[in-house]
């Protein structure tokens, strides 16, 4: 049920009210009460699921993070000991450093590509616009596990097509899965997957740019490129901010792609290539559920701080600009 049908129903109810026989004084108040309760009623399904699958597990994980299970002796309350261990854990920082580097390199490249693609699609100069829009977006529709598997195959030495091509040309393919090149290789996979997704968000925002602006810009003598950079991009700034926030969260939580690459490059990925992978291995290999919970909360705090810092800077700039 969407907002439209809700308003329509409300309107019908209002128009019917005078016709009702029992139209006593109490009735409008009851209607008002009902109207007040309505949003919560509609929210209830979401809130129930949210409470059951987000809030409750979070609460349980927080509780777990204060305990420690030992093979000998069982579960004991240790207070913040897991956290004090976590903030001194070099394995955690190694992963964090890697995803931070990943964020700094991959996200700007991906977002610039997404903006450029969106602007080209929006400019109306492209033929087969729908085909291109779909084409850019299709990688996002491919499950990331499948995407990572396929890229792993493409990268592989001695069996991948890149290798076959380079050796046919008499060249030698660098090992794209070696420890030095793994991060760019992963960045490439993620860029392939998510550029289309970000492009769609920005493209949707571009659709809302009023057409009169184009004429106004043309009258002022701005060419299409200038119009795009000086008018369109600033107007879709909220969408770009949104995609950046998504990307901060996505980068710091990088998991699927390195997890898949583990099977073909185990010693490069190891068990702590990214913080999320580290938390996963702590739980399911080391059986350290509680410490894993602490690491997860710490990562959550870093993500929150990163996103908040970014929003704060954006807002400050917006304020100083106005």
């Amino acid at each position: 049920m969407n907002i439209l049908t809700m308003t329509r129903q409300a309107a019908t109810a209002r128009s019917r009210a005078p016709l009702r026989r029992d139209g006593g004084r109490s009735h409008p108040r009851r209607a008002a009460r009902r109207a007040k309760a309505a949003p919560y009623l509609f929210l209830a399904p979401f809130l129930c699921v949210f409470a059951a699958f987000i809030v409750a597990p979070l609460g349980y994980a927080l509780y777990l993070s204060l305990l420690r299970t030992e093979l000998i002796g069982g579960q004991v309350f240790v207070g913040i000991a897991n956290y004090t261990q976590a903030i001194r854990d070099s394995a955690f920082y190694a992963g964090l450093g890697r995803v931070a580097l990943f964020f700094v390199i991959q996200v700007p490249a991906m977002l610039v590509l997404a903006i450029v693609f969106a602007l080209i699609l929006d400019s109306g100069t492209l033929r087969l616009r729908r085909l291109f829009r779909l084409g850019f977006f299709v990688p996002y529709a491919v499950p990331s596990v499948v995407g990572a598997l396929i890229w792993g195959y493409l990268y592989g030495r001695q069996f991948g097509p890149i290798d076959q091509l380079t050796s046919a040309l008499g060249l030698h393919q660098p090992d794209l899965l070696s420890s030095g090149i793994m991060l760019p290789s992963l960045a490439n996979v993620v860029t392939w997957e998510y550029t289309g997704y970000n492009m769609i968000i920005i493209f949707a925002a571009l659709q809302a740019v009023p057409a009169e602006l184009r004429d106004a810009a043309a009258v002022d003598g701005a060419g299409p490129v200038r119009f795009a950079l000086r008018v369109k991009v600033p107007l879709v700034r909220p969408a770009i901010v949104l995609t950046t926030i998504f990307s901060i969260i996505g980068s710091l939580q990088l998991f699927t792609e390195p997890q898949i690459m583990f099977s073909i490059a185990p010693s490069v990925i190891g068990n702590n290539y990214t913080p999320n992978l580290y938390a996963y291995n702590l739980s399911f290999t080391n059986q350290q559920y509680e410490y894993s919970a602490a690491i997860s909360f710490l990562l959550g705090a870093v993500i929150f701080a990163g996103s908040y810092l970014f929003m704060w800077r954006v807002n400050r700039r917006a304020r100083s600009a106005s």
Partner: protein
Amino acid sequence: MPRQTWRMWALALAGAALTAGAAACGGSAAPAHSGPVTVTFWTWVPHLGKEVALFEKTHPGIKVNVVDPGQGAVAYQKLQTAIKAGKGAPDAAQIEYQMLPTFEVTHGLVNLAKYGAGKLRSAFVPSAWDQVVSQGGIWGIPQDTGPMGVLYRKDIFQRYKLSVPTTWAQFAADAAKLHRANPGITMTDLAPNDPGQLNGLFWQAGSRPFRMQGGTSIAVSVNDPGATRAAAYWQKLDQQGQISTDPDFTPQWYSSMAKGRYATWITAAWGPLFLSGAAKSSAGEWRAAPLPQWTAGQDVSADWGGSTTAVTTQSKHPQQAAEFAMWLNSNPQAVRMLAAPPLFLFPSLKSALGTASFHNSAPSFYGGQHVNALFSQIAQTVPAGFEWSPFQAYVYSQYTSTIGKAMTGKGSWVGALAAAQQSITGYAKSQGLTVTGG
């Protein structure tokens, strides 16, 4: 009217949810007092239909429900989670030797001595039986085992005039000779992602990394002289580029096996059959030999792989589950079926290793060599007395992240072994164990 429809929908949904919930819970019906008892068995061995049918026929009171939880680590995660949750574990489960103490120490397994497993002791190869016994209990019944040997490419050995090595010194000489003649082929591949292989090589070299003492104390010596000796040996070959360090069971590895990029595969008794399926195009070129020895004239192997059938403490029918575990792995007819196509499990039961049909199989993939007979002999040379830690998943992940890294980076394997010793000791302490020795 619209509200009523809404309510109807809500009711319908709630109803559906309830039925779904009830259906989900339906599996855990209370045990019946009369009639057959159903034993659930988690295993990733496929095609057990015939064995189960035979068991149910000869044991009218017991039905077996076989469930595939996924292989190895996946299955252990599920089993560990179920044991931790206190419900959801099967009656019986396939557990590899190295993981038995992990489940035993958290009181997840039933001591099968209670159900008469002790009488089976002499029926099994000593090294296999030795691995299911610890802390005065019998925690699983051996199923298959993996005594280690070498599969080698006869054509490559002939072309480069290499002799089949009987000592590791000869193996290294062969490796150097081969590397000089053709750097495109390496003597063998050691997998940085497969600690079981490395562990077997350490075992053969005399390493005994763990010894539990009284249930709460453990001696940890991952970098003991045996392991260090083997690590130093392989480190040298690795740094000279004479061996490969590609992860095993990957597309690259399969292609290298089939195309003859590795002259040998150091593997276990389950390897010959596996390879004949995985590298079909190289049929006829392969032969099998025992592991090279550290001291000439000796006859020492080690185990890599192999499983047991264990009974969980959550089982409501431990006696019936134990009955099944013992029957499946010690009944001559059942074991013969397990060792035959399509399963080909390499038996740990002495009588099965000795049967003529098993010995006389001469696969053309190995040029008619009696591979099973060879590995049956090797099975007798696996030294008993090797103990697994009660946190073997952690140990193996440490092997991968320390030695595995040194392998691919051509770094110091010996140094990595020392680093592994340190982290494993730390982990053992964090688990409340008293760590001695080292």
